[in-house]
């Protein structure tokens, strides 16, 4: 094969990997949207918050250290001991469950029966609140996150692909980050677990019932509020997974919350109500933006990744307003 084709394949592969990352965030969106009809803008910030909390537990940071120091003139920063990975992750999951419970208690409960757009804006408020809270609790500096997932380029893959190149051509193999491969594997695992959970457990069935019809679910005795707490907790865990992946890749920092914006076109493409849609949408966006940048980018000055996903989603919507796998939109007066 000529190096050009190999380069294109490399771009596509990397696009797929990025797409998996987008899908991870989009997955959280879909879960909450299906169960409560809420478009949760805060999903990206939840990933950031979860990652920050995880790092905080790992390194044994004192929450609100900066605030306390500023208020009382003290200089505490660290407990001195951190937790090991497993305990830190469990603790973070507990924090996310607590968070879900609080959100239901303090915000969602009061907003039942409001228009979807009001709920959407409330989650934007929530996103701002959590962003401030996360930074205030754990500090705003960029943190490295390491939970033992291997990273770095794969030499094996580089060697294999080098043999594919036609003889005599200058080609040094493809670069693929092992971390990305792990992320893909974990994403697949996550989807399998979620599917099994929603198909075979009692709670999972209740979740699907609520997603189908709120009122019918209420009449057969499913507590909507409990379901909401459960769904937000699950979304919190998905956010944690996304946060770990993105955090190990590029450090835990503010820009992590911006991937929420990237997840929006993914959702549009896949449809808000479909888990496979979130995955496929993520892959399409990931590959699309990488290929566009590779082929068209140099002609127009680069950095097209900033907007390509949105424009693609826009054109897509013109032809299929409900997304690839979304439920048909039926409008009644």
């Amino acid at each position, binding site marked *: 094969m000529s190096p050009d084709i190999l380069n294109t394949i490399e771009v596509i592969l990397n696009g797929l990997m990025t797409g998996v990352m987008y899908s991870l965030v989009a997955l959280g969106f879909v879960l909450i949207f299906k169960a409560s009809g809420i*478009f949760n803008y805060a999903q990206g910030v939840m990933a950031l918050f979860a990652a920050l909390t995880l790092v905080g537990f790992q390194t044994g940071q004192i929450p609100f250290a*900066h*605030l306390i120091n*500023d*208020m009382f003139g003290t200089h505490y920063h660290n407990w001195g001991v951190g937790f090991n990975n497993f305990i830190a992750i469990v603790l973070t999951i507990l924090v996310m469950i607590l968070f879900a419970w609080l959100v239901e208690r*303090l*915000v969602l409960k*009061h*907003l039942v029966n*409001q228009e*979807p*757009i*009001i709920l*959407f*804006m*409330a989650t*934007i*408020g*929530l*996103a*701002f*609140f*959590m*962003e*401030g*809270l996360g*930074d*205030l609790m754990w500090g*705003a500096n960029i943190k490295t996150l390491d939970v033992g997932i291997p990273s770095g380029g794969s030499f094996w893959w580089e060697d294999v692909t080098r043999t594919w190149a036609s003889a005599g051509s200058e080609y040094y193999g493809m670069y693929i980050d092992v971390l990305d491969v792990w992320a893909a594997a974990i994403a697949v695992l996550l989807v399998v677990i979620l599917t099994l959970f929603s198909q075979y457990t009692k709670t999972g069935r209740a979740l699907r019932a609520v997603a189908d019809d709120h009122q019918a679910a209420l009449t057969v005795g499913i507590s909507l509020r409990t379901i909401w707490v459960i769904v937000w907790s699950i979304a919190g865990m998905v956010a944690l997974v996304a946060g770990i992946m993105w955090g190990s890749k590029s450090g835990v920092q503010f820009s992590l919350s911006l991937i929420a*914006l990237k997840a*929006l*076109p993914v*959702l*549009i493409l896949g449809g*808000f109500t479909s888990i496979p849609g979130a995955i496929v949408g993520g892959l399409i966006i990931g590959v699309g933006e990488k290929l566009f940048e590779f082929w068209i980018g140099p002609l*127009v*000055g*680069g*950095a*097209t990744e*900033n*907007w390509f996903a*949105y*424009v693609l*989603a*826009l054109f897509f*919507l*013109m032809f299929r*307003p409900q997304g690839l796998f979304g439920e048909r939109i039926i*409008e*009644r*007066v």
Partner: protein
Amino acid sequence: MFYRESGDFKTSYVQDQQIFPIALDRVFVGIVIAFAFLVVPFLIDDYWEKSVLLPVLIWSLAAIGLNILTGYCGQVSLGTGGFMAVGAYASYKITTAFPELNMFIVVLLSGGVTSLVGIVFGLPSLRIKGFYLAVATLASQFFLVWLFNKVPWFYNYSASGQISAPERLVFGVAISGPNAPPWATYLFCLTFVVVFALIAKNLTRGRYGRSWMAIRDMDIAAEIIGVAPLKTKLSAFSVSSFYIGIAGALFFLVYLGAVEPTEAFGIDKSFLVLFMIIIGGLGSILGSFIGAAFMFLMPVLIKNVFVGGFGWSTDIVAHLIFMIVGGLIMFFLIVEPHGLAQLWRVTKEKLRLWPFPH
């Protein structure tokens, strides 16, 4: 006591259609406008101009623009920052190409350009609704900002990639550039804000405003009773972008002076304006003013109190502001989804009935 309607009898259609049917209201608004035009220019200094009055005026104008689209016509847009950038760059291109052109005309023309861009990006709204539209408008936000970064023609091939406002005179007084006196820039902005707030108020009371609201409340029903969705939605997009474009032009020419698109017109500005109209009140011109003032001045106040008063470090206060803003938005949506303007309406109603509420 206040706001008595007894004595205010409407005997003609003109009286029935007044913007402020209550005499006290009319007098009060008259006094405020007269004060703003006749007294403030003599009191204003550099600090008040740059940190309070100009930004509040300009953000109010942008908020009115977004309110027309989101509050009145029900189309949520996250592209405000992008449209402000269009206004800013249009005014820059126009005023550097025709240096002799009157600044009022320059600003109006840049509003017109933005309005055309708004129509183009509004076209999808005919097929896309709700969240889907909100995401689609993100395309305009990111694409436009990218465009102004990457195409050198827009910034006249300047080395820094920035645009900076040249000095321009109105009636012999500079209103842009470093030598512009505070009162001149203030009056320039105030004129636009007052005139266009009045126009917006009248637009929303008239045929167009009513068809916008019909589309907002239920688009299919509106279509059935004969409101043309194409005309209505696109007119909302074009008027809204016109206002936002003017705000962008003023923001660049008069307030900032030099602009780098990613920083000045980023997605955070889109959210800021959206928050202004949520907190101020969706579908209310008064609300746009209150919201803009509140959202802009509250962080300044908090900062002054905590940094100046308690001596906390600035980054901590910045995070605190994030929390407070987010918390307030949720609070308002829960307690009063119609924003501060609704509180004012309720107060007014109470005052009218006082002291016999039943």
